């Protein structure tokens, strides 16, 4: 009788485990992995040596995304560093380097090749579309894990709304890029700070500029390898840590940081029930013999 009961429980749990694990194999192919195969990713090169801090990209971004209008003529905003916000998907900041140069840097979502935010999202509201943009959908539950996971602190949450959204640069995907046009900020820039193309072209263009004028540029393309590479890459005339960039992020794609752990959970879920039943059965036998 005991034995039959034990077998019943064993069969029940094993079938449960089988059902539970039916969806693990898919999970283990972490989201970002489709990455560079298939359609080529799009990208933008930001050449900070050309930026004059006119803020017209901020204006164009605000207009195309129907964000609240601000006074974009005001140059006093450069006094202190501004982060992007839920009403400003892109901002230009002014940095003074150690040798006294003034450099303007435009910030927005980097559209990582392997986005941490997308791998964090439990409903795939944040996701990377095949062409490269990392975008947000309304099935979001508002947990804000994407904000914790983003190494660049880009996703912003509407704390003062009862129906809040996650707000960030969307690469003008729906309104421009999908139709074959360039993003609004790229299009409007009077000094052609930004170069839009496939990510491959963009990185090549960055390399070409550095090779052609090796004295002008600091020899690094920020975003070429950081966190596994980003769609938006930067070149500049000064080391990037002086321009508000984090240079301690490493080159490991963010989804990889938790992938090993996810594999372990799958193993635990497969192995532990059988193990426990085994131990339980053995312990019971022992007690009976006592």
């Amino acid at each position, binding site marked *: 009788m005991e034995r039959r*009961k034990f077998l019943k*429980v064993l069969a029940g749990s094993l079938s449960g485990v089988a059902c539970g694990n039916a969806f693990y194999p898919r999970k283990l192919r972490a989201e970002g992995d489709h990455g560079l195969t298939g359609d080529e990713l799009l990208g933008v090169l930001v050449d900070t040596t050309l930026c004059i801090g006119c803020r017209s990209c901020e204006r164009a971004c605000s207009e195309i995304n129907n964000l609240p209008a601000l006074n974009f003529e005001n140059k006093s905003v450069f006094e202190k560093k501004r982060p992007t916000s839920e009403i400003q998907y892109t901002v230009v900041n002014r940095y003074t380097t150690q040798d006294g140069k003034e450099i303007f840097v435009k910030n927005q979502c980097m559209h990582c090749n392997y986005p941490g935010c997308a791998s964090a*999202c*439990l409903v795939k509201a944040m996701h990377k579309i095949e062409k490269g943009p990392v975008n947000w959908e309304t099935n979001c*539950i508002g947990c804000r894990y994407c904000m914790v996971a983003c190494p660049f602190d880009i996703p912003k*949450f509407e*704390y003062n709304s*009862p129906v809040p959204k996650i707000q960030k640069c969307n690469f003008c995907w729906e309104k421009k890029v999908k139709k074959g046009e360039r993003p609004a900020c790229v299009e409007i820039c009077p000094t052609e700070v930004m170069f839009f193309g496939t990510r491959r072209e963009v990185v090549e263009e960055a390399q070409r500029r550095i090779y052609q004028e090796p004295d002008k540029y600091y020899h690094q393309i920020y975003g070429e390898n950081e966190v596994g590479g980003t769609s938006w890459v930067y070149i500049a005339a000064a080391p990037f840590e002086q321009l508000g960039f984090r240079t301690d992020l490493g080159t490991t794609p963010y989804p990889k940081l938790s992938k090993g752990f996810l594999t372990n959970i799958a193993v635990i879920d497969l192995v532990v*029930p059988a193990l426990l039943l085994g131990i339980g059965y053995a312990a019971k036998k022992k007690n009976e013999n006592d």
Partner: protein
Amino acid sequence: MNDKTDVTEIKNLKEFFTLFMSELKPRGGKTIFTPFNVITIPIILVGLIIIVIRFAKGLGAVTNLSQDFPWGLWIGFDVLIGIALAGGAYVLCFIYYILGYEKYHPIVRVVVLNGFLAYSFYAGALILDLGRPWNAFNVLIGNKFGFSSVLFMVAWHFFLYTLSLLFEFAPAIAEWLGLKRAWKTLNAMTLGAVVFGIMLSLGHQGGVGGLFLLAKAKIHPLWYSEFIPLLFVVSSIFAGLSMVIFEGSISSKVFKSRMSAEHHEAHDRIVTSLAKVCAGSMFVYLFLKLLELNHEQTWSLLSTPMGYWYLLEVLGCVAIPSWLFLTGARRRSLGRVKLAAVMTILGVVLNRLNICLIAYKWYAPVRYYPTWMEVVVTLTVVFTELWVYRWIVNRMPVVSDSPDWTQGAH
């Protein structure tokens, strides 16, 4: 005709009200103005008002959450700390049901009940923190499954574990209601629920730590490592058991009249045994911490201000209490064990707050501090849970003996 229904409705309402008021009183008590009620009722009422404001105006109206600190007290306390302290249920189930140590029988039910209530209420509190809670079901119904997300795994494990705790506790409900046939079925399912419960606990206890693997650039190197999930699992063992010891010493006073003789006698013996398990798991934890320091080569950071804070947590709230547990168990000194339990609980609270708030963005110029409203809502969650706990313990056979008709089946 109309008048008649009105009258009965009023009568029903009146009856409901008297019933409600009598439920507020402690069992057998004459007044509802007990110290517990006087403290908790106003706080719960204020908390409910704050919750209404939160849903009407958004999270910003009542919390200090910001773009830099998207997770605050509600996640840090309710979820991280709550889950760790509720870990006693799976550890005790493992010892009792799987390893078969019968001596823990008197406390298994009360610990499972505590676990179930903790999980239900903390999951409930999580809904308050979600920006778009009406979408929460998307995780379960698959409006999309985020298979690459640790949070997805945590959510499912969390949900299923709450269910399995309910199944583990269900026989007590059946005994209370006198449902003999249901009791038999439910009792037969306990082992399965326990096995799944332990599996799910390992997954989500580690998973809650695993959430922070993606915050590599934001957590102070002394606290960040690949070991976070493992450290969370190990610390949930001694955190959970310390909570069992702590709660046990309170319940044995509050519910003295309800307690079975078996429960009373066994209490001290159980406490010293649990103290040994705590001490053991704390040694493992300390060893892992050492391994982590060596693996990440973060020794030099120990002599910075953050390093002193780290040492306070690890030495003051793990090493010292583990020694107290060990010596307390040897000398059979309940006072020492209880002191150790309290210190351990504080240590786990400190550790979880460090990871999600204090060592998180330790470089940020503007820190996060909870508003008084966040604190009140957290207290509301805890107090409401205590209310439900008291209601159940006073009715169902939790600390008291099961009815006689269950004896034959054992």
